[in-house]
Structures are given as C-alpha cells and as structure tokens.
C-alpha cells in the first residue's frame, strides 16, 4: 500500500518537458521584432514603396523564416504587405527591401555587396565586424543579450534614411 502511495505522485518526477516553444524559435522571434521595427525607423525611396515589402533571408535559417512568415500574416510595412523569401544562393533578379545574411551562409561580404549593388536594400548581418565593412545593421551578442550595431553610412550608401530615434538602442559604428 505504501509503495502504491509513492508511485501515485512519482509519475511527476522529471516529467513535464520544457516549453515546446524552442529557444531557437524565441531567438528568431527576437530578431523578427527587431527587423519589423526597423521598417518603422528607416525610409525607403519612393519606388520601393509600392508592391510588396520583400525581406530576404540568405542561407538556411528555418526558425527565422518561419517567424518572419508568421509576422507577415499579421503586420504590414506601412501599406505594404510583407513577402518573405529564403534564398540558398545569390539571385540577382530579386529586389529586396531588407536582406538578412545568416551566419551559416558562406560567402564573402564583397559578393553580397555586388548582389545588392544599385538596389535600395538594407543589409543586415550577424557576424562580428561586418558593420564596419558593408552591413547597415549587424546583430551581436552583448551581456548574453541580442543587440545590434548600426552603421548609418552603410545605410545611406543605398539611399536609405535612418531615423535618429534608432540611435537610442543601437551600438553606433562609424
């Protein structure tokens, strides 16, 4: 009888797995909130304000693509609906408003520069040092937290106007 009594509560020992919202999904959500908010603080040229607002994700990044697709069902960039594209290689025919380069995507920054040359694309990366090179925004980790570097000149190079309000949270890179 005593054994039965222990077993009754024993079923709860170390059962109850951690949340099915995986940490990868949560991390992707953090980036997605940032990326969505960038559309509010950055102004694209007139010819980019019609049609869909296209966000490209370069490289394998299923969690981020999934989260961006989820955001696209709920939000707009001004009056423009979002369109999310996941590329595994550089396709010159697509016009992107925003291009996120996954850290796993093996390519040189100069290749990416060629890819977006002449376009009004916000280049967002996630590798140390890239904001000093060509990226307008570079995600970094600081004190265990997701932060972002902002290089205003790299944004302006592609005719993008960045609101000074974005400076508050950004780590500014000259």
């Amino acid at each position, binding site marked *: 009888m005593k054994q039965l009594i222990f077993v009754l509560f024993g079923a*709860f020992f170390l*059962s109850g797995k951690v949340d099915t919202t995986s940490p990868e999904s949560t991390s992707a959500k953090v980036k997605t909130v940032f990326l969505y908010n960038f559309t509010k603080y950055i102004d694209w040229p007139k010819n980019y304000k019609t049609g869909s607002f296209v966000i490209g994700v370069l490289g394998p990044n299923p969690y981020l693509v999934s989260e961006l697709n989820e955001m696209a069902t709920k939000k707009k960039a001004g009056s423009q609906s979002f369109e999310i594209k996941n590329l595994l290689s550089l396709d010159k025919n697509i016009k992107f408003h925003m291009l996120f380069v996954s850290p796993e995507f093996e390519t040189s920054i100069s290749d990416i520069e060629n890819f977006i040359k002449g376009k009004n694309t916000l280049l967002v990366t996630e590798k140390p040092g890239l904001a000093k090179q060509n990226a307008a925004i570079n995600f970094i980790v600081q004190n265990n937290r997701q932060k972002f570097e902002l290089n205003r000149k790299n944004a302006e190079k592609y005719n993008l106007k960045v609101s000074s309000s974005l400076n508050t949270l950004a780590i500014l890179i000259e």
Partner: protein
Amino acid sequence: MKNLLPFLLTVMLFVMSVNSYSQSINLMKAQELTQAAKYDSALVFVELAAINEETSKELFTWYLRGFILKELYKAKENSDPRSKLREESFKSCVKSLELDKGSEIRMNTIQTLKYLASRYKNDAAGALNSSGDYETGIYNYEMYKKAFSYVDPSMNFNQQDVEFNVVLGDVYGSIFEKDMEKNKEFFELSKKMYEKALVLNPNDASANYHLAKLYYNKALNIIKQTDYDMELIAFDNIVDESVELFKISLPYMEKAHELDPKNVNTLEGLSGIYYSLQDKEKYEKFSEERKKAEQGK
C-alpha cells in the same frame, strides 16, 4: 405523602433503566444491521446511540459509526473527493481512538483509518493529476496525512511532502502559463511550492528541475507573447527580463543535472538556457550530451 415516596422512587428508577436499555438496544440494533450489511438502516440506530449521553461515551459507538459510514462512503460516494460520509467516518474513528484505552477493536479502527487514508491519497493525486483541482488536491492530501498519522504516528511525511509540493507547483505553473497576465499570482504560488520542496530536500532532482522549468518557460513565454509592434525600448526591457529569468533558472537546472546526469529533460533544459544566453560552446556541449542520452549512451 410519606407512603408515596418509595413508589415514586421506584417509578423513577424503572424509567431510567428502560431508557438506558433502549439506548443499548439502539447500539445492538445498529450492530445487527451492520452484520446484515444494511448500512442505511444501521446508520439510523447508531446516530441515536451517538447523541445519547451514555452511549456517546462508549468507544464502540464511534467505532461502529465510523465503520458504517465508511461502508456507505464506499457504496455511494466513492468517486466524490469531497465526500462527507468519508469525512464523518474519519471523525468517528478518531473519536473512537480517543476513547480507546487499548481495546480489542483498536486495530479494527486503525484498519478503517488506513483505508480512508489510502482513498484520500488517491483522490489527492487524482485531483492534481487529471483536473488540476488544487483545492481538492490540498484538502485530500491534508486529510491523508491526518488519517495516516493515526495509522503510523512515527510516519515522516517529508519526502511525500516534497513530491506533493512539486506536483502542486506544477498545477499552479500550468495555470500561470495559460494566461501570464491574468494568472500572474500563480507564478508566485508555483515558485513557493517548489521552494518549499527544496527546503525539505535541497537535493531533490525533481524539485530543482521543476523550479528551473518554471523560470525557463516564463523566460521563453514573455518573448513568445510579445507583439511585433512593441516599441523597441520596451522590447529591449522584455529581452533583459527574459535573460535574467534564464540566469535564475540556470543553477536549478544545473543542480538537477548534477543529481541525474543522464536525464534528457534537464539536458534539453541546459542546452536551451545556454542557447538563449548566447553561449554557443555550452549549448553545443549539452546538445551533444542530450543526443547521447536519448540514444541511451
């Protein structure tokens, strides 16, 4: 008048002895009906005995009442975790033991209490495991402890208290996660239960893991529930809060891991925490260990 006094005294004595006899008859009738398994009818007579000044002082009255009520509970309220019949049976058994100075029926009363205790424990587990009815769970667990204390006065409930607090913490935690804003007080209740368990036994793997999980899930959920529209400064504060929750979760998850190194859930928890804290090296280490544990290595 002088001649009437003996007569009056005789009448008085006669009335008193008839009254006493009829109360004993009630008890005898109750016993007879009990033996015939006619418990509803038996209850009527034993209740009369229980309210009578004389027979209410007899331990047999209360033993019999406890037994009858137990049988009626089994027949009619077996699936009622708040059964009044069971509660009254318990009270009667306790009363019987209080009057008992070492009689032959003591062991019978203890057996009744042992049965009631097991039913209370079952109902406590049932309330928490299936419906998450924590009030009924708490009530039944407390009654189980009271009843079993009479069965075994030397019983140490510490480890069972640990298990119960963990299960109850889990119930509170589930309520919290359904709506973190509306049910915010359940986070504190859940935390309190796990902390109580850890006071009783700091090396309980389950309590450590569940407390870690509570903070971990809150850390994930506050991000999950954020609207995309949230202003960046406010969102940055949410991210800060999430990181702090992961940091609070970490030592408990590490302790759970130390106590049960091959447990897949704690390994998953650790890899998740380190991923969220952007510690790639430790994330990969525990991911690898988790894979090995899943393969039984």
